[in-house]
């Protein structure tokens, strides 16, 4: 058995090393870039910075994917010297995080809240809140072992493209298999391959290959149609909306009562997504009402020529160069409002 095991171990080692080298070469040749897995640990590593104080303490950013793509952290830091804390979660309502920060007596910083209507105003307990609740449950229990593992993991992720969980895992491969589902089964539409990366600071950005590919952009638009860009049903109003607004106002008042500041942000959308949002979440009934009810300031991109002229390649997010320009225009407006 010893000889068998020794030879087997040697062969296994050789095959695994060959696989790792081959796979890394293959994905780099296919234009995949370094991307950090946006998991509990990465979120927790950002969250621990929310209590930073002083003039260089960056604003805390919560919301959905738009603030992750459209607010360029490097530009913000260059212009203000502050390093923002990116806590936004893709495809997720920020209201649970807003509530948590409101209830956190130690948080008294500046909060910028991205309002993507269909996510922000999703009903309480909706699937759109799941990831937020998971992150909020996980970060207080971020153990020493997990922190050490995270530190090691960052070293590997900064060097190996193949460690991208979103794009390059067994499950990601299985999801892309063209197997038809039974009638009535709702499945998440396939996003374009390699369309975005996630930085160590949780900055999201479209890849160069995505920006060069009309076909991939069309694929993303088709996905958005299934995720809201073709929606016709008006967002919930009446008592449902009122209850949501009460909860939001309570959190905002808690933060402001402690000396903190809150500002709502509406990032650009275009094409069918903008049309759907206008149809289902009319500004007067949702955005304007939000600001009026909470008495918190807000910046709607459409109100400022410097923010309103950008195009979204797939209707919903800005390209990196535009995100930098957008942020450059946004910074003085945020300073003014706050």
């Amino acid at each position, binding site marked *: *058995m010893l000889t*068998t095991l020794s030879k087997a171990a040697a062969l296994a080692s050789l*095959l695994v090393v060959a696989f790792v080298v081959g796979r890394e070469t293959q994905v780099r040749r296919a234009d995949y870039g370094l991307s950090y897995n946006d998991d509990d640990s990465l979120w927790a590593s950002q969250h621990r910075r929310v209590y930073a104080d002083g003039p260089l303490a960056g604003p805390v950013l919560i919301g959905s994917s738009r603030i992750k793509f459209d607010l360029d952290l490097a530009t913000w830091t260059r212009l203000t010297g502050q390093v923002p804390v990116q806590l936004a979660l893709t495809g997720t309502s920020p209201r649970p995080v807003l509530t948590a920060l409101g209830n956190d007596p130690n948080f008294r910083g500046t909060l910028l809240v991205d309002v993507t209507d269909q996510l922000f105003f999703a009903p309480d307990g909706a699937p759109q809140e799941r990831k937020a609740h998971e992150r909020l449950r996980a970060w207080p229990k971020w153990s020493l072992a997990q922190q050490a593992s995270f530190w090691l993991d960052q070293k590997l992720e900064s060097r190996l493209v193949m460690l991208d969980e979103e794009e390059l895992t*067994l499950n990601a491969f299985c999801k892309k298999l063209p*197997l038809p589902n039974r009638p009535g089964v709702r499945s998440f539409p396939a996003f374009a391959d390699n369309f975005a990366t996630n930085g160590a600071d949780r900055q999201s950005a479209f890849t160069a290959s995505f920006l060069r590919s009309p076909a991939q952009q069309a694929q993303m638009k088709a996905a958005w149609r299934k995720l809201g860009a073709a929606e016709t049903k008006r967002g919930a109003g009446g008592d449902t909306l009122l209850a949501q607004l009460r909860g939001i106002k309570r959190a905002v008042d808690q933060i402001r009562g402690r000396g903190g500041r809150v500002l709502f942000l509406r990032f650009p959308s275009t094409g069918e997504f903008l049309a759907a949002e206008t149809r289902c979440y009319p500004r007067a009934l949702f955005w304007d009402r939000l600001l009026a009810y909470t008495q918190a300031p807000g910046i709607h991109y459409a109100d400022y020529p410097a923010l309103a002229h950008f195009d979204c390649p797939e209707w919903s997010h800005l390209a990196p160069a535009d995100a930098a320009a957008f942020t450059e225009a946004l910074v003085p407006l945020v300073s003014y409002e706050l």
Partner: protein
Amino acid sequence: MVFNSYVFVVFFAVLLGLHNLPLPWRVKKINLLLASYLFYAVWNPPFVVLLWLATAVDFLVARRMAREQRPGPRKLLLTISLALNLGLIGFFKYGGFVLENFTALLHSVGIAFQAAKPDLILPVGISFYTFVTLSYTLDVYRRQAEPEPSFLNFALFVTFFPHLVAGPIVRPADLIPQFKTPKQASREQFLWGLFLLSLGLFMKVTLADGLLAPAADSVFGVPFPLAPLDAWAGVLAFSGQIFCDFAGYSTCAIGVALCLGFVLPDNFRYPYAAIGFSDFWRRWHITLSTWLRDYLYIPLGGNRAGSGRAYLNLMITMLLGGLWHGASWTFVAWGALHGLFLCAERLGRGWASRRAAAPSAQSAAAVVLAGPNAGVYRASLLPAFSPGENLTRFGLALGTLLLVNVTWVFFRAADFSTAARLLGAMFGLIPGGKPLLTTIDLLKVGVLTVGLVGAHWLLRDSSLRQAAARLPWWLLGAGWATLLVALVLTQKSSSSFIYFQF
């Protein structure tokens, strides 16, 4: 710390390095002990104090008990150990549950009572290490073992990191003797240990977390009735997940210990090929079932006080076994179902053996009871089963698996309404159930379930080591590489093992 983490890789590499240096054996044991405390403390440092408390008290109690001849003081010392260990579990694990049910009881008779809900963190592994120390004090009390004179050996027995947080639940006789003489893995042990570690991680990361958990979580998480296919797929997914997660952990633990030169007991022996529930419990979480048999079922009287009492003892053992898993009535229901199936099986066998009391049938039973598995059969809670034709056995195994899956519904469901809804869907009792799972999810569950049951059936009377020894080296190597490549392709799962919550 979990085995499926980068920090464990570094921790283990450093420890292996230290363990293989030419240091005195005592120094190596101290290294292992400190490493074990570090392994535990990096989860939540203050809870190491509980570990020290259980270790110190039980060491001292056992020493005193062994010297004491008078029954009264001996019982008192045992009571101290029981009170401490069961008190710890009771407080941290069941405090909230007791309060919740007490409040519900008062409300049911019209008394308004509301207490502040205690916000307690359950110390990881408390259900495991308290059982380990209890087995020590109970064995010393029953004079089945001598107290260990070396505190270092005893502390290492309790705290040895491979088994500390989720078993196998080791007995003093399993492990303490191994600390008395220098241990270093032979090359063969080291390589086999690494193979087991690879296999365990593959089972946990790739199979349990990567491929099965999503379907199980989806099905058990929806608040509406599902189509039968989806309900079954979700339950089978959980069935696969819990086996791969827990057996994966045990396999890692055994592999890691072997790399250091220590042998831990098997904890799983292909349970999804079990024929009957008594066979299931000889194959599933073996160290827990034997612990419950030796320290609960047999002291209650076992089957020595007549049939009626035997059934009662079986039910008590399984109810408490269910409650051990978690402070929830659904776990108790899971235990109760297993108890009922065991009782029904015992009743059936008793009836069958009375009917078949012919000489030819008796000699067949005698052959079985004298055969290679006789020790296992004799050690079980119930009389042995006479093997029949393969097809019949396979059919019975599938029948057992079907019932085991029914019990898993209660184990995983958050509450009884979820369990009822899922069972209703599984057996087509709820019309209009919705389809939920994608085709790829159904395929994953289907392929993995067939693969798992097939592998269990092929290996049920053998062992992985024997199977590996029969393979040519290049096939074993390719298989090993496949496990590791699958692990790399699944990526990290930072989730802890399911049994950490017990």
